[in-house]
């Protein structure tokens, strides 16, 4: 393939990665923004979503689309419920102290990951996509008869991947509507701005925290259900999304929703594009070092306010 078609392919793959990353990172960002809690177990809720999707999809017979739709509902619900339990049993009891919550969620990370290893096993298992058509993409080239369309070999995308991008956009819009236009969103934003005042105005801050923590985990699980027909479900798959989400949330500015989405597009796309041309390990090294440097010299990120 020539450079042009190659680049288009890299951009499309990058867009799939970026849309899933945006959903995952948004969950992390929401939890940090409202609760000031760094949820190190966030990647495991992502993994949980994918594994539950496999269980649901294999236990429902019939067309793969039915199982997939069921997983789309069930996986976020279960992951959210587990997260609310974690909030209730652990985070609340350490009074959301920053260091204690980090150590506690590291513990939750291993508990979820290793329990999955015991129940689900060490294999990577695929989930069948609800639909998957190969769509060949045209490319323009200056040929003998002037400008001409042709379909280069290998330049194609599946309809499912396009669906993932569209679904992520829809979910992001719904999320934005919930945050900015509903009562629940108002309460969340009030709690984020000033916990004490919110409490004084009769907002049940404790319950808001539970809901936000569950909501964050559900977003990660939803992202995982979307990606699991492309990647396989595996008990260690939470590691990379966690790291990338951290990177996105830091670059975007801790707790800023707009910054998170912009950064997710930036990181997801460049990760997709760079790893086509450079070794993926090298691109990861560069990315992690860059993030560390950003955090050292500009801790508030691109859009965030200075944190205490």
């Amino acid at each position, binding site marked *: 393939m020539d450079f042009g078609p190659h680049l288009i392919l890299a951009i499309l793959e990058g867009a799939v990665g970026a849309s899933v990353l945006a959903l995952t990172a948004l969950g992390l960002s929401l939890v940090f923004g409202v609760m000031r809690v*760094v949820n190190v177990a966030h990647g495991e809720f992502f993994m949980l979503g994918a594994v539950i999707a496999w269980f649901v999809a294999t236990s429902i017979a019939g067309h793969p689309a039915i199982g997939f739709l069921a997983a789309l509902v069930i996986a976020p619900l279960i992951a959210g419920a587990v997260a609310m339990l974690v909030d209730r049993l652990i985070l609340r009891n350490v009074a959301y102290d920053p260091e204690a919550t*980090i150590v506690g969620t590291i513990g939750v990370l291993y508990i979820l990951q290793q329990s999955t290893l015991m129940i689900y096993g060490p294999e990577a298992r695929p989930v069948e996509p609800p639909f998957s058509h190969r769509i060949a993409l045209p490319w323009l080239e200056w040929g003998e008869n002037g400008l001409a369309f042709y379909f280069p070999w290998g330049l194609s995308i599946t309809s499912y991947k396009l669906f993932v991008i569209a679904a992520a956009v829809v979910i992001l819009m719904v999320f934005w509507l919930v945050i900015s236009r509903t009562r629940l969103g108002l309460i969340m934003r009030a709690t984020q701005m000033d916990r004490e005042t919110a409490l004084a105005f009769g907002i049940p801050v404790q319950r808001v925290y539970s809901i936000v923590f569950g909501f964050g985990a559900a977003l990660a699980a939803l992202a995982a259900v979307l990606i699991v027909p492309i990647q396989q479900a595996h008990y260690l798959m939470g590691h990379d999304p966690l790291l990338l989400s951290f990177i996105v949330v830091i670059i975007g500015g801790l707790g800023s929703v707009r910054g998170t989405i912009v950064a997710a597009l930036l990181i997801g796309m460049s990760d997709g594009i760079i790893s086509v041309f450079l070794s993926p390990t090298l691109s990861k090294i560069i990315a992690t070092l860059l993030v560390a440097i950003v955090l050292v010299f500009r801790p508030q990120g691109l859009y965030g306010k200075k944190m205490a």
Partner: protein
Amino acid sequence: MNLDARSAALHLGLIAVLVALGFVLPTYHQGNLARILVLATYAVGYNVLFGYTGLLSLGHAMFFAAGMYGCGLAMHLGGISVIPALVVGLISAVVLSAIVALLALRTIGVAFMIVTLMFAQSVYLTVLYLGEWTGGDEGFVIAQASRQIAGYALTEPLTRYFAALILFSVSLLITARMMQMSFGRVLIGVRENEERTRMLGYDVFRHKLGAVIISGTICGAAGAGYAVLFGYVGATFASVQYSIFPLLWVLLGGMGTTIGPLIGVAFMFYLIDYASGLTNAYMLIAGAALVLLTLFARAGIVGEIRNRWVPWLP
């Protein structure tokens, strides 16, 4: 007895018990204890920063790995003998910890944890990327014949045990002495109240810088010791898991106590040893321990003993 004499008696007594154990333990447990002593050295180094200075790092595996790869590669590729290789390992750890300290100490709190995590992650990925020399995930084995000091083979169990004990004792005595000197006192001041320490006229940044470098160097020494004594160098030791372990050990044993790290490592080592016989998901134990510690015993084993019964414990 005054406090300093009591703590000296405690530490020398502990070392005497460990010397005696070297002669009476069966070979299996002797090997385990040698490994525990090297890992406890790692925990002692971590404790300097986390327990005494109050800085929570999530990236100490990079210092352990710096010592391990510095020493291991010097022997494996450079073909030099044990003592100079250990020096190479130590120098690598000093250099890396100085660089990391200068950058990471500009941040505080949660940002410090994430910055150290990111630096450690890039060190880990670099080890994988340079797989041609480091062997990547699989790592490499250091030739048995080269693992000897002045004719004493470090592969021989009893010699290895005492080499590990010397490494641990030196780091234990250095940190215990350090915490009695004014430098160590200032570190505790930084942990308790950084603003007040600064107001009293101490250069907080210089003390934190010193703490990171001392902590990183002791961890590097543990890594170099591990490479020489057990002859294996692998990328696992640079992974996130090995940054979490010292945190777990120190929390379990008791942060800010001199003997806590050893107690924590020994406890966790045998717990994981037992659990891995039952299931391959033995890290479940580590996860549960972390959660239970944050919920119920923030002071750890030795810390709780100190709070309840023996207030003079160093």
